[in-house]
């Protein structure tokens, strides 16, 4: 297990390095220059060139990358070209927003989806058909549309939850949960539909397995068969989908963050790209990559715990 973990960790580090190098090259290939941003709209070509020299943009690419990497390893992602603030402190403020949203949405979709999926698999009749149709409908709904609907009904009309904004947990715990409720519902409901479908398929397959039939023949209580044996057998794809969902939510909830005015990573990425804030773009890319790598690592460990064959692979 130790060797497995070391191998996976090493691969993770390489992935982050490759992603950082690629993002660095892409930023350079995208045209423009940081000097044009920092010198201001009315700057002359000479002023822009001088700014580029000050920012080290004139140095060879390899030197620039290694210098950036050296700083990044020490949690120094440089300063924003737009406001001159440190990028890392800004990311530290934003990561909890996106992480909270992604974690709760994943948990919500996992609990709801697994519950519904199991119910559909063990009740192969009307309930199964209702759940299949309902999850299909839910899957076809875009998250932003669902978000707009939830805001209109629960915030604007019913005045039950805040329509926008984020409150830090340390500032007011109840308001923290309130501020996350609608984004989590918007993201989690479609996620639950995917999980429900995956769980149902896995459970149906599991319940038809030879060893499950044997357990039935031995008179093992049905709840043990379903929730200990069959669900564990069916859980590998569900865990994989949950992991993928978490990654997608962490890196791709820009529209939901805009809709609910949440100051998360998605908003930071969009602003950085819009304003050509090169160092900020790189910072967000590296963080997002690190999250993907870490999530995959945790995912692999969970899968390995669930299925010993994975460890041997």
């Amino acid at each position, binding site marked *: 297990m130790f060797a497995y973990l070391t191998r996976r960790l090493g691969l993770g580090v390489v992935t982050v390095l490759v992603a950082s190098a690629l993002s660095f090259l892409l930023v350079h290939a*995208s*045209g*423009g220059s940081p000097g*044009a*941003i*920092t*010198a*201001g*709209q*009315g*700057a*002359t070509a000479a*002023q822009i060139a001088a700014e580029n020299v000050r920012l080290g943009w004139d140095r060879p690419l390899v030197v620039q990358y290694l210098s950036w990497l050296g700083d990044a390893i020490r949690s120094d992602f440089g300063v924003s070209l*737009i*406001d*001159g*603030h440190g990028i890392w402190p*800004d990311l530290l*403020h934003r990561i909890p927003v996106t992480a909270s949203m992604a974690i709760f949405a994943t948990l919500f979709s996992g*609990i*709801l989806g697994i*519950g*519904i999926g*199991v*119910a559909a698999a*063990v*009740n192969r009749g009307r309930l199964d058909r209702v759940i299949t149709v309902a999850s299909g409908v839910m899957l076809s709904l875009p998250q932003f549309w669902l978000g*707009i609907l939830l*805001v*209109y009904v629960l*915030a*604007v009309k019913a*005045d*039950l*939850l*805040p*329509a*926008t*904004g*984020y*409150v830090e947990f340390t500032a007011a715990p*109840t*308001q923290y*949960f*309130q*501020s996350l*409720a609608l984004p989590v519902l918007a993201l989690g409901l479609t996620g639950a539909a995917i999980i429900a479908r995956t769980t149902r398929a896995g459970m149906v397959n599991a319940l038809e397995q030879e060893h499950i039939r044997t357990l039935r023949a031995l008179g093992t209580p*049905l*709840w043990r068969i379903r929730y200990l044996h069959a669900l564990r057998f069916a859980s590998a794809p569900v865990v994989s989908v949950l992991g993928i969902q978490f990654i997608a939510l962490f890196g791709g909830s820009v529209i939901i963050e*805009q*809709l*609910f*005015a949440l*100051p998360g990573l998605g*908003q930071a990425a969009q*602003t950085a*790209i*819009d*304003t*050509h804030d090169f160092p900020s773009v790189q910072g967000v890319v590296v963080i997002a990559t690190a999250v993907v790598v870490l999530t995959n690592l945790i995912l692999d460990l969970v899968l390995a715990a669930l299925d010993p064959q994975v460890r041997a692979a």
Partner: protein
Amino acid sequence: MIGFTFKRLGVSALALAVAVVSLTACGSTDSADPSSSDTLTIGYDSDPAPQGFDPLLYGAGQRLFYESTYQSLFAEGADGQPVPELASSFSYNKAKTQMTLKIRSGVTFTDGSALTAELVKKNLDRRSDAKLQAYSGFAKGGSTEIKNVEAPSADTVVLTFTAAQGSFQTNLMGVAGTIVGEKAITDSSVLTQGPDGSGPYKMDTSVKGSSYTMSRKPGTDASVYPFQKIVYKPYLDKNARLNAQISGQTDVSLIDTSTQETAASNGVSLVKNGGTMLDLLVFDKTGATSKPFGNKDVRLALSYAIDRESFVKTVAKGAEPSANAFPKSSAGFDAALNTEYAFDVAKAKQALAKGGYPNGFSFTITASPTIQASLEFLQNQFKAIGVDMKIEVTTSTDKLFAVVNTQPLGFIPLTMSNEVGVTAGVLVGGFANPHKAQSPVIGAALGAAANSSGADAAAALKKLNGALINEGWLIPVAEQFSYAGYDPEVLQAPTYPGIDGYPLLSSFKPAA
């Protein structure tokens, strides 16, 4: 067993319900974001401090935000006219090439420094800094250029101009005339952390791009600034801003034109003001990047080719068609221009032929995705007279800035809060004239408008309006309205100063 499964599901549902109830039990959204009578929460349409807290980095759109923490040499009065603020009085020399400002005493800044004539000079001496876009109105080479600033005594500042000026105080009104404290002048990095001004409020906390909280300074006149605290909340998404206003998370919000009907139908009270012109800005008047644009008749042909009524009905609902450079409420507005440049394909083709392009020509325009629909509408209009306008859409701000130098035309909303200032700082001496084109007609009209005052001002502005349009430097399409939505239980109806697109901070008064 089925019963058991339902029982489990029931427990799950119950757990979720408990979670939701516990989240909502603590009250409505008001409790999530308290807005008591001494706190005013404003929903802003952009991050007012994306580059830090130096007000000179920004334009008129950020005036409402910076009014809370800074003061200007001249404030914007309720009628939109300049009112001395940090300047106590002003006068011109006979030739109107010098303006003498008397500076108020007893004004202090957040950093503890005091307002002096020397500090005003140090502020204005930053005008060559290309980053400080608010200073573009009196930049080098422009018709309203400040040639020199002197501080001959502790309370006197003398500005020397390259040309005669009659109403230069309008250029020192609002953001452009804002004075930052001594510490910020010495070390500009101070302004990345917070404002250093002499305004009625000081900033308590800020979460970049999310909220900025100000508290009233001791000694501030509560009858002018009645709210103890002001919270600015930027909502970049217009629907999020609307939702925040409808649900009571904000007391007043800048409402987008496209959402004003929804706001009204959901019980939001609205006030509106014109002033933002949707213009095709002709960057290239010399033919440097596209030869046809060097010809005035060609530029006018494009103006005749636009069906402004249809444009508004199709892609700019809530706006009003206009062929004027200045807004309807401006003293320089001229209804005759709307008739003169009414949609007329035959006239457009005639002008195109007169300009030497009877078969049309083609050019490229680059713009952000938000205005793609507007451009596609105009593309079809120009196609009818044989002009092929190719549209390139980009999200790169860098590229949008760069094309000003390489393309002949841009489509940009222009807030005409100060007709002479915008003409001088944007159209003639600013970014909209990268090839330094000169028009004796516009130059003379601008000079006369800048030099006029009192009763002559209206006629001079009208002449300037006509010059900009008849020379084809500007092709206006419509006038857009700014909306502010407010909660009448919290606030009285706010008011706009003159043709400004943003209400004055001092116009926010608690409901009776």
